């Protein structure tokens, strides 16, 4: 099997699975649909393992658009970045498929769920393989669709239906910018959309390529436009509001899409186009600033959440902020490294949270749990490993990748470094809070005291992911995924960075433990954090005023002016003329005679004026 057909297989097999489930699910049972979906995920995983470490190659699968002035292919680029990402996507995808066999076993619409999962695998694969901007946009949108379908899986639930819509629309706002970015680059580069060609036209060797000649504002517009797409997909401030609500979807979906892979697509895309971003200093500063701010802002909100999935969701926002900041600081490899390690431990945490929720009969409030350490030891063990990796305990995977990012921040910008360090402290604090409240102490509710371990089909993926959460930071592992192996190359600053980061972990965890151990309700009560800085309320207000209010106003004006001036006014004039004309035809002889006389007089007068006088 050559690489071209292997890549085509990875891309098209999930599509085939999704489509056949859509068509077949009326006729065959859930079992067949589940088998199709899981089998396709498995084959994709095996194939992407084979491709890992293969020679870089590009190719074309299909011509999508081909008209004079624009040709766009569905192609692929297989290099270290895409092969590594493909491994993550298919590996976690496969585990989530398997886990879902257990988690969704009671669900009434399993076939639809697995069909949507396959659809997601197809779209995500497309983003990873994309060799040009338009193809990336195509799959970017399709990933949004799969996310919409999966968040809204339980569509009868109004909150799920709303969350699905919110996710899609928020992403659409980001895509508005993404499209502007693509169009700008296309215009500035004389019609190039493939990464290779754009890179070529910017490369150091050529000094007169079209992109070199583009004015600075054009490059800034392009860079910021592309970044706006990432802001939507990777849920950065100010478009972060959809991700916490997306937790309305089934938990395996949260793990796969809203933690490990899809939300990381924004970062993946930024790294792909980083050679364009660096052309604009302003854009880089904005990217780093937004990333750093999101990391801190989301961590603050996470401190006061009580829903176990929402804690993890805010933590995801915060970690994505780290990655975006790394890109903005010019350390895209560090961002990708963190993306990889984060994918493992965050998927682990979400699947662990799913096992907890499963164990407590769909209870998600950590204050209604407690003491789960004894009832569900395997879940506790794996969740704890995930927590330690996320906190960045030395030796765990998260430590290495976070270290890289902190190092880059220290190198470039001191206030971003300190805010990132503080974010690290907050991270250890809220994760310790979560673990202590949910797993330690006594069971606070009936459900928690009768909690039972999840079935093996769910626990096995947890165990497997734990191994990766621990070891994926080491060079022998991550080196296979990407060119950059973690290195200690920040000079004398490195020891300092490491000391600060370890101190942050210890202080945060210590504070969390002492503050929450043995408590039955939250000793802290920070309304601002718990209410997420009231951003949702502010946005609801803005939508109400600027969209619905404006729509109301415009509709009113339209019916007054357009309908009034273009239609009613001429109609009224016609009516008036008609009425006058009708009044003349009254049927009364006197009236006619009078008018006849008047007309005769007028005619005589006019004739007398016109005729030449003698």
């Amino acid at each position, binding site marked *: 099997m050559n690489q071209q057909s292997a890549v085509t297989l990875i891309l098209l097999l999930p599509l085939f699975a999704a489509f056949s489930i859509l068509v077949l699910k009326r006729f065959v049972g859930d079992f067949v649909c589940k088998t199709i979906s899981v089998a396709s995920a498995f084959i994709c995983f095996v194939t992407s393992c084979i491709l890992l470490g293969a020679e870089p190659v590009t190719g074309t699968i299909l011509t999508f658009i081909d008209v*004079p002035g624009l040709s766009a292919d569905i192609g692929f680029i297989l290099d270290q970045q895409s092969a590594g990402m493909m491994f993550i996507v298919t590996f976690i995808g496969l585990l989530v498929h398997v886990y879902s066999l257990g988690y969704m076993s009671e669900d009434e619409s399993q076939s639809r769920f697995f069909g949507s999962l396959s659809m997601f695998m197809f779209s995500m694969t497309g983003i990873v393989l994309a060799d040009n901007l338009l193809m990336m946009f195509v799959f970017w949108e399709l990933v949004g669709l799969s996310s919409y379908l999966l968040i809204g899986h339980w*569509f009868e639930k109004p909150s799920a239906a709303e969350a699905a*819509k919110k996710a899609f629309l928020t992403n659409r706002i980001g895509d508005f910018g993404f499209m502007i970015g693509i169009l700008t680059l296309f215009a500035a580069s004389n019609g190039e959309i493939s990464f290779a060609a754009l890179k070529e036209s910017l490369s150091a060797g050529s000094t007169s390529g079209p992109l070199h000649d583009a004015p600075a504002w054009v490059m800034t517009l392009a860079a910021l436009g592309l970044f706006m797409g990432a802001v939507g997909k990777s849920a950065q401030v100010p478009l972060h509001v959809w991700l916490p609500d997306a937790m309305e979807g089934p938990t395996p979906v949260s793990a796969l899409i809203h933690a490990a892979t899809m939300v990381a697509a924004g970062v993946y895309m930024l790294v792909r186009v980083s050679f364009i971003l660096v052309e604009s200093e302003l854009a880089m500063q904005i990217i780093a600033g937004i990333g750093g701010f999101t990391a801190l802002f989301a961590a603050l909100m996470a401190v006061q959440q009580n829903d176990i999935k929402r804690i993890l969701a805010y933590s995801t926002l915060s970690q994505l902020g780290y990655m975006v900041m790394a890109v903005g600081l010019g350390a895209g490899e560090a961002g990708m490294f963190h993306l990889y390690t984060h994918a493992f431990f965050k998927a682990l945490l979400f699947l662990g949270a799913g096992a907890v929720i499963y164990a407590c009969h769909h209870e998600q409030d950590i204050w209604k749990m407690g003491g789960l350490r004894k009832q569900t030891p395997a879940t506790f063990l794996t969740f704890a490993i995930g927590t330690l990796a996320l906190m960045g305990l030395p030796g765990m995977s998260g430590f290495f990748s976070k270290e890289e990012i902190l190092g880059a921040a220290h190198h470039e910008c001191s206030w971003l470094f300190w805010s990132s360090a503080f974010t690290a402290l907050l991270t250890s604090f809220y994760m310790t809070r979560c673990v202590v409240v949910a797993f330690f102490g006594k069971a606070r509710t009936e459900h928690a005291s009768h909690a039972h371990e999840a079935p093996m089909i769910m626990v096995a993926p947890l165990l497997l992911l734990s191994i990766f959460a621990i070891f994926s930071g080491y060079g022998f592992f991550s080196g296979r995924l990407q060119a950059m192996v973690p290195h200690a190359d920040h000079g004398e600053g490195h020891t300092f960075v490491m000391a600060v980061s370890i101190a942050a972990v210890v202080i945060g965890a210590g504070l969390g433990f002492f503050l929450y151990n043995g408590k039955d309700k939250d000793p802290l009560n920070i309304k601002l954090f718990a209410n997420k800085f009231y951003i949702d309320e502010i946005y609801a207000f803005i939508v109400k005023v600027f969209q619905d209010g404006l729509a109301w106003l415009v*509709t009113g004006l339209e019916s007054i002016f*357009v*309908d009034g001036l273009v239609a009613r006014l001429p109609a009224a004039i016609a009516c008036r003329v008609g009425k006058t004309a009708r009044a003349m035809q009254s049927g009364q002889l006197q009236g006619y005679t009078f008018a006849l006389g008047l007309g005769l007089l007028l005619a005589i007068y006019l004739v007398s004026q016109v005729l030449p006088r003698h």
Partner: protein
Amino acid sequence: MSLLEIIILIPLLAAALIGAGLPAKLISRGAALLNLVVLLVVLSQHAAGVNLAHSVRILDNPSISFAVGADGLSLTLALLTCLVLLAAVWQIIDKPAIYHVASLLIAGGALGAFLSTDLFFIYGFHELALIPTLLMIAVHGHGDATNRRAIAWKITVYLGAGSLVLLAGLAALVLNFSGSNGLTFDLNALMETAKTAPLAADTQAWLFFVLLVGFGTLVSLFPFHSWAAPAYAAAPTPVAMLHSGVLKKFGLYGLIKIALPLLPLGAKAEWVQQALLIMLVGNIIVIGLVTIHQNRLDTMLGNSSVMHMGYIFLGIAAGSPVALNGAVLLMFAHGISIALAFALCGKMRNQLGTLEFSKLGGLAANAPFLTVMFAFATFSSIGLPGLANFAGEVMVFVGAFNLNLNAGLKPIHWATILALWGVVISAVYMLRAYRSLFFGKAAEGHFISDPVGSQRLPLLLLTAVLLVVGCRPTLITDLLTFAAK
């Protein structure tokens, strides 16, 4: 006799046969199917390079002929017509024969307008298609009799006025471009003259503007649009499908086929450009917001159809090959997706009795098939890749934004940016509608069930076209021949 003439005659003949008392359902479905088959033959012949043009002289001076001819543009729209006609007559159940007759007449008129190459017949066939549209709204429309008659009057006056302006513009074209051998209505002859002896730029601009208003009114160009939404809401389902999907495209077809080649400088004149950009942004943003404000499915779809015309006008305004290819692709895609939406809307109205969002909900639980079909219509109309509209929109955007960007943001760039925001707006109203109709708790008192058996076919046909063209837009664009200047 050319195959093109046969394509025009089949629906008209079928309408006459039904009028003579033959079984309506059988004849109309048979004719629509036959027409599609013949058209596919025509497409294959066109691909093989066969010249299908044919002409029958009717008058010598002025010279008028019943002339037909096919280029990629006409064939694309003819294909659209045949597909929508098939779906439209197939989904008619338990309705009087007049529904079939009207559908066939509208489609026959549209095919005549798209395939003729003589201005006299292009104009005449379009008028022929309009009459049954207006009558069907007045006689068989939805809502109470006074209301639908008022709406029928409104659309009659609007389209009548638009046609009148158009007539004046076309007459001016004939007078100006007839050449030395007496007046002619032959489009090809007019084009020859336009090439050899073009008009002064100023005259071209004025003439183009007149045609823009005339054709534009027929396409619901802002601010001459307010007939459209109420008309589609009131129209019987097959009429709404055929008019919004097919016949409305006539105005756009005329601009691309007649106005642009005859008056190339007119379209480029700065004041015409700016007027057009303002109007199309009106379509996209103003009507987009109006669409958000609608609280019923039928008026929402009607307004959305007005809004989407803005994108096609943007392609015409940009005028580059990419943009024109995109505009035509979008005409096709919009035709299919709006026909699908109105077909679904009709099914829902029949069963539910109301289309108000606030009274409905949770339809997905009982009607999974309709839910999936509506999802295709929704996501196609908001430009999801993989469905037909996306490629057209992208090509229009690329074509419009690509115009000399380095020199700074010009009005057309701003219009493109606003049009991009329009994509967000259409996602807002379509997803709101989808959510409130299909998701959430089932509303009490309104039941719906999936269509069964062959009633699924018209919906599946349109969906399949959306998917196929969405994945392979080259199937359509390869027919077209907009060359780089």
